[in-house]
């Protein structure tokens, strides 16, 4: 300062009375990327963070490095939300998923910016966001329909009306794919909550920005707190807790690492969790959406209801 001649008019006086050049550029307000638990945005209990970088070497943000205690807290929130969410009318769940799509549509530009920061081209980013929105709409439609498709009236040789219906399994822990952080996250979460479950999802470690912003979408979509909880951090550190927590009913893992898969299988056996691996799915293609994904976290309940002797009426079941 003071070495070059500066026009007096461009100077401002700082607190200590010294002259300094007026900033030509406004200081940007950077977003704090926090985790999402029970409808709140806390920082990680551990106080830790990590700094993911993109291909160009630019730092994306300081992101919460969640600990097992964050996961534990998230499971408590998810468990508390199960009865409220699963007892909602299926039609209402559909409305809420549709609302999520609406909110996502409204913030398309923001998501595209974040995807571009995370190495996508503009065209790729647009494709990913629109597909994510469409996927929510797709599952919104399935909310009150998959039960009819997958329920059955069973032929039994006694005086019983016997039927089977899918019911949500409960709390689902999800380790989301590393790539295509928005579309993949939406694609794994949507079928789980469509079926009336609640979940705790670990977002992509390398590309976490969209996941955190997506939780803001959830928060403004009438989705009750605790139905979806989103953590950021390292799968290697958290996977074993995702698999062995006794209060988790099913786990979905999208990591390709076979030793991690083996470990998760073993630990999940502790309380007979359903374990599903989505490690080879192309989420952009048609196979990336299907009502069968909903069924991966459903339990079939079969009911025997006594009736009059229906054989007399010539009934076949």
């Amino acid at each position, binding site marked *: 300062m003071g070495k070059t001649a500066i026009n007096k008019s461009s100077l401002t006086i700082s607190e200590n009375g010294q002259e300094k050049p007026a900033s030509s550029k406004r200081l940007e307000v950077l977003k704090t990327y926090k985790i999402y638990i029970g409808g709140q945005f806390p920082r990680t209990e551990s106080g830790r963070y990590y700094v993911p970088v993109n291909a160009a070497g630019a730092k994306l943000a300081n992101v919460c490095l969640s600990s097992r205690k964050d996961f534990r807290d998230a*499971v408590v929130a998810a*468990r508390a939300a199960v009865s409220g969410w699963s007892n909602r009318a299926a039609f209402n769940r559909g409305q809420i998923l549709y609302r999520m799509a609406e909110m996502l549509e409204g913030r398309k530009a923001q998501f595209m910016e974040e995807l571009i920061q995370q190495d996508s081209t503009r065209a790729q980013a647009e494709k990913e966001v629109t597909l994510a929105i469409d996927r929510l709409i797709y599952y919104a439609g399935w909310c009150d329909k998959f039960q009819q498709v997958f329920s059955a009236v069973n032929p039994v040789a006694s005086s019983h009306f016997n039927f089977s219906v899918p019911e949500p399994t409960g709390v689902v822990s999800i380790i989301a794919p590393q790539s295509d952080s928005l579309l993949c996250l939406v694609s794994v979460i949507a079928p789980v909550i469509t079926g009336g479950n609640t979940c705790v999802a670990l977002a992509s470690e390398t590309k976490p920005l969209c996941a955190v912003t997506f939780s803001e979408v959830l928060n403004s979509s009438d989705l009750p707190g605790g139905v979806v909880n989103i953590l950021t951090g390292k799968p290697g550190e958290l996977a074993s*807790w995702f698999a062995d*927590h*006794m*209060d988790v009913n099913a786990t979905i893992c999208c990591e390709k690492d076979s030793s991690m898969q083996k470990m998760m299988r073993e630990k999940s056996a*502790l*309380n007979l969790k359903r374990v599903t691996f989505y490690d080879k799915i192309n989420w952009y293609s048609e196979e990336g959406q299907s009502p069968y994904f909903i069924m991966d976290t459903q339990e079939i309940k079969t009911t025997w209801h006594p009736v009059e002797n229906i054989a007399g009426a010539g009934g076949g079941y």
Partner: protein
Amino acid sequence: MASAGSLTMLPDFSLSPRIDQVGAEERAARFTKRSIKKESKLNGLKLVLNMIDLTTLEGKDTDGKVKQLCYKAMHPHDAMPGLPAVAAICVYPSMVKVAKKALGDSGIKVASVATAFPSGQASRDVKLRDTKYAVQEGADEVDMVISRGKFHAGEYNFVFDEIAAIKEVCGEARLKVILETGELGTFDKVRRASDIAMHAGADFIKTSTGKIQPAATMPVTLVMLEAIRDFYYKTGKMIGMKPAGGISKSKLALHYLVMVKEVLGEAWLNNHWFRFGASSLANDVLMQIVKEKTGVYQAANYFSVD
């Protein structure tokens, strides 16, 4: 009854120490900063379990429910052997006999609420007969409520005499005096009510019935513990403490233990002098104990409800 025997020695209760609310709250908050992990946590949790008064005080209580609760008291979690039993079962007077029979010679005490619990809005005669009935049925401990209305009206002598009269009919049974701090309003009044209860012959002072919010909080318990401490210094007589209602998490229970140790010392760290009145705390403690032993987070599904 040392105090009642020497009425001239009774202090003027309107001169009970005034409590610095901000100070009490900050002091209580500081107890929550202690880090208790691993082995000491496990021992703390077992101690908490051993201090619980497992409680059911519902209009819908049945013999079956009480029997089941008694079984839970004796066998908190059989899948993990070596766990201590709880301290007592806390029920209405009409359930005392059932509980007494179900607990047999397990050593677990039966505490009975009495004196027109939870409101205490009845005549002295009714309250005395209620207490007598509970004691006759076999209650080892009696949890009475004070007349909060009279207390607020400044009729401290009425409150005092009532407690002393109840104490008399308790006989061998230990008397816990419930202040119902949620209805007292200020820490000053909690302190005053504590002093009255202790001088009138309480063996325990207890925060709440569990029917009024707020129930037990750490600051209010701190005020009562300090009253116990001052009473001990003055008379040499130990008084027990029982926070009740609103303590449902192990971590919070451990904070309470820290508070007891730092205010009253280790002499109070056993179930003869300190109790938790709770129903859902037991299962949370059990879940934490199993987590400490196995390293796996637990689910409520795998623990008996009661």
